[in-house]
């Protein structure tokens, strides 16, 4: 599908079970590098579960069991020799609700890098990350101020700066703007366009207009069949095609609002 793009992540026959409940079934797709891929679908269809598979966050859920493969530039991140902490250094995550630490703005950004034993100039790293997250100009004189004093939109950009500071290759975002007002949302969307020059971005969003605006590729998820509770990807393609001429009837019904 993407002759022009390198493939960053390749998912093969992925299943996820929570105990004896199958949440994801038989997903295979490829995520192009330095592009924005959106995952859309009705709530409860497994978008967050799927996103968490990309950096082994499901390992932190005791009942979750992942089978199949997720190749990161060819390396299976579920291989027993692979350290999940290392995976998360390369593939960072930004959550729905901004979750800064109750520390200074500076410390929030420096934190991850410090844990990873960053040896370079920390001031420079903090500035570079805040600039990349389009937050520097707003906070440069208040770096010692508590992160909790920032607005919701600023907190979310701070979390993006924190993710960037450990120099990942992929940034996963789970509904990163759903708790934000329209202006703050727009800022995050603009920021994503900047970030994709250097990072591969996968975003879960329940806002279809947002997916249509920001992403290059769109994966449509849905429960795999009538009566089943297992989600799967039913259609994946270039975003303009998905939103103007989807091939799957269920995608059509969902994006035109005739689903349900």
């Amino acid at each position: 599908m993407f002759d022009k793009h390198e493939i960053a992540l390749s998912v093969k026959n992925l299943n996820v079970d929570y105990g004896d409940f199958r949440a994801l079934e038989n997903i295979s797709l490829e995520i192009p590098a330095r592009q924005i891929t959106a995952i859309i679908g009705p709530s409860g269809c497994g978008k967050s579960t799927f996103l968490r598979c990309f950096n082994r966050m499901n390992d932190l859920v005791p009942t979750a069991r992942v089978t199949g493969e997720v190749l990161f530039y060819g390396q299976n991140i579920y291989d027993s020799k692979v350290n999940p902490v290392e995976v998360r250094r390369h593939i960072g995550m930004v959550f729905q609700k901004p979750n800064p630490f109750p520390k200074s703005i500076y410390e929030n950004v420096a934190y991850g890098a410090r844990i990873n034993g960053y040896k370079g100039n920390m001031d420079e790293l903090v500035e570079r990350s805040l600039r990349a997250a389009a937050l520097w100009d707003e906070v440069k004189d208040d770096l010692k101020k508590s992160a909790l004093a920032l607005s919701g939109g600023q907190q979310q950009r701070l979390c993006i700066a924190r993710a960037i500071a450990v120099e990942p290759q992929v940034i996963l975002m789970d509904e990163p703007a759903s708790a934000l007002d329209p202006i703050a949302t727009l800022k995050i969307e603009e920021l994503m366009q900047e970030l994709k020059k250097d990072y591969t971005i996968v975003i879960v969003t329940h806002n279809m207009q947002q997916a249509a605006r920001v992403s290059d590729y769109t994966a449509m998820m849905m429960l795999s069949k009538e009566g089943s509770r297992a989600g799967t990807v039913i259609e994946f393609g270039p975003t303009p095609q998905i939103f103007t001429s989807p091939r799957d009837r269920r995608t059509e019904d969902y994006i035109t609002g005739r689903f349900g």
Partner: protein
Amino acid sequence: MLRKTFETELQQVKDNVLFLGSLVEQAILDSVEALKKRDMDASRRIMEADREINARRFAIENQVMVLIATQQPMAHDLRLLASILEIAGELERMGDYAKGIAKINILMGEQPLLKPLIDLPRMAQKDADMLHRALTAFLDEDVETARAIPQEDDEVDALYNQIYRELITFILQDPTTIERANWLLWAAHNLERVADRVTNICERTIFIATGEMAELDGAANGEENA
């Protein structure tokens, strides 16, 4: 299902397109009939009625833009609304062709027709018939019919070429007929263009139904035919 209001509004826009289409269809037939009978009053009424066609086209555009802004249509709905903008434009231009023919009748003043009109009314009838079926295909999203109609453009082209040759013969025999021949040629040209625009409507119908943007025969080569 969901989105009842939106569905209703979509249906209303489609009805408005159909109504606009019927005005245009009538204007085409009337304009040639008025020319044939040299009925100046009828031609003036047709020119006047073109204002309503223009106004209705703007009203449809406005309605579509409000729906796009407020409903964020996707997929089929988006293709439908984008195509309606296009189709309303095509209809409005067809109305201009009818108005053009009405104007020719008025410009001819007291001069008699160069010859009794036979092929021009046939062209107008064929245009109106194609337009009518094209709009029905649009309403039903009938891809098969939408593909078939543009093939009939050949008949319109054939009538046009026939008229063209006949009028040239008049001019060659008697150069003083040039102005009167030219008026009729212009009317024929307008009718030939109507059929090309019907083809464009059929292309939109296929796009609405399938998402496929295809160029059908008869549309692109309109200008060269003239």
